[in-house]
């Protein structure tokens, strides 16, 4: 997963550090070696993505892929998704929603807001590990646009 010279950074917004660790391990096992930037709450993630002023200019020129959990302590993943998809700088960055919820309405809402992929975390670890690894394989062939 790369463009000439510019590595793609994976922004992981996940409040459960255990989950974050398991996701990271399995992505690495799939051979993805890109930089992984973890956040455990919504506000610090938004600050990184959109800057302190919220304009999103800080992300200009970055190549980002967002892994988003919906259950966060300070805000819902939905509102983060909304902010990303409504910001002209980062709106093209792929957002992969990775959460425990498999409620049909929630899934619909995320796609309506512009989520690129929605994955339910399987509780069974073998399936979980498998899913993350496949995601990692998917990353390897994915094209990520540069933010403007």
């Amino acid at each position, binding site marked *: 997963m790369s463009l000439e010279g510019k590595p793609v950074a994976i922004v992981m917004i996940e409040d*459960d550090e*255990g*989950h974050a660790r*398991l996701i990271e*391990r399995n992505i690495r096992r799939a051979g993805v070696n890109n930089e992984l930037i973890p956040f455990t709450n919504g506000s610090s993630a938004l600050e990184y993505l959109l800057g302190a002023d919220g304009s999103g200019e800080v992300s200009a020129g970055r190549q980002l892929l967002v892994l988003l959990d919906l*259950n966060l302590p300070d805000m819902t993943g939905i509102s983060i998704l909304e902010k990303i998809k409504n910001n002209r700088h980062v709106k093209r960055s792929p957002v992969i929603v990775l959460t*425990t*919820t498999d409620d049909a309405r929630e899934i619909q809402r995320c796609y309506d807001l512009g989520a690129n992929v929605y994955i339910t*975390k399987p*509780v*069974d*670890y*073998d399936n*979980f*590990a498998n899913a993350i690894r496949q995601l990692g394989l998917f990353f390897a062939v994915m094209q990520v646009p540069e933010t403007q």
Partner: protein
Amino acid sequence: MLVSKFNLMRATVSFVAVGMLILLGIVGLSYWMLDRTGQSTEELIATRDMRSRLVDLLSVVQDAETGQRGFLLTGEDRYLTPYTVAVRATDEKFDALRRALARQPDSEQFLSDLKSALDDKLGELSQTVELRNGGKIDEAMALVRSDRGKDLMDRIRSLIGGRREMVEARLNRAVIAQRDNALILQRSIIAGGILILLAGAGAAWTLTRYTRELVHARSELEVLNFGLEERVKERTADLERANEEVQRFAYIVSHDLRAPLVNVMGFTTELKASLEPLQEIVNDPVVQELPRIAEAKAAVETDIPEALSFIKTSTKKMDGLINAILKLSREGRRVLNPERVDLEALFAGIEGSVQHQLQESDGSLVVETALPTIVGDKLSLEQVFGNLIDNALKYQAADRPPVVKIRVRPQSDSMVMIEVEDNGRGIAEQDHTRVFDLFRRAGKQDKPGEGIGLAHVQALVRRMGGQITLASELGKGTTFRVRIPRNLRFVLERLGEFRG
């Protein structure tokens, strides 16, 4: 205070009875009065008759005397004619008078007095007439002058006059009595009329009061009823809200429980994976000389894998429970879809899905009565009866093939009751409510299950506005009775109303 039905009847009946009695009294009185009037009229006629007889007799005697005088004066026969006519008439007139006076008490004396006076007078008259006839004018005149004839005549006049006065008095009395009778009748009719009116008014008043009380009671009942309806609405809305909250709560909790479970399961697997190199190392001859190598070996090869496997089964179980809660709460949130459901077809479908189990155990599913078509949520109904039939086959008695009977019991117009009866192992009395609780099971725990089936069934039935009860005897079998509305749409409309 309300007039009781009995009191009302008593009051009305007594008023009517009083009215009838008064009416009867008036009729009786009128009859009696008429009778009396008839009597007094007869008496009046008789009295008048007496009077005219008296007058007639007097006039005949006077005629006779007048004729006698004329004959004495003129000696002409033509004056004698009135005399003879009158004398002849006298007897007839007297007899008439006698007849008229026949029933009068003191008439005998009067009649005999009058008779003798009359006879004397007639005798005197005929004596003078005969003397004159014989040419003895002077003797005849002397007889007249003796005043005997005048005295007799006076006597007759006074007798008849006295009698006439008596008769006149009687006549007056009879007229007065008749007038009194009429007056009494008139007054009693007026009084009776007033009494009947009063009785009627009394009955009308009682009825009016009763009716007013009825109307009042009805309006009070309406108010109460309305209040009750409002209260039921409020309560139902509260319950609905509470139910929704519980479901939302269950949903959120189960999700939040899942997240840590992912970690537990994930890291357990990671741990197991990490164990592999350690297991290799402890068996390396290089480390066999290290102190405590035996303990390390035991830990790596048996203790830690055993602990991990316990953690794994426990988390698996917990995952199952969380999924069950999630399923229940999701069912509770599912929007019910009322449609026409042919229960015959529904049970045929269920029979098809348990065919394998039936064949395996040589069991049968019997639909005993014709099943109606109702308006309900097909999926919920399938789950309810599918679960019940599944349970009936799952918990069959060991010594006999399972027989499941389905039948409909007549209920009200709006409800239908479906019974699912089995000949399985039955449920002990103390477990009759417990079996509906979540994660609770009863009897021998020899079949897999999480204890959510009946809890789920009960939740579904309640959501459809119904009830589920059971009757069971341990070792004999169980009958589940599902009472559901014939039209789910009405139930949903009512709930919609409550929410609105």
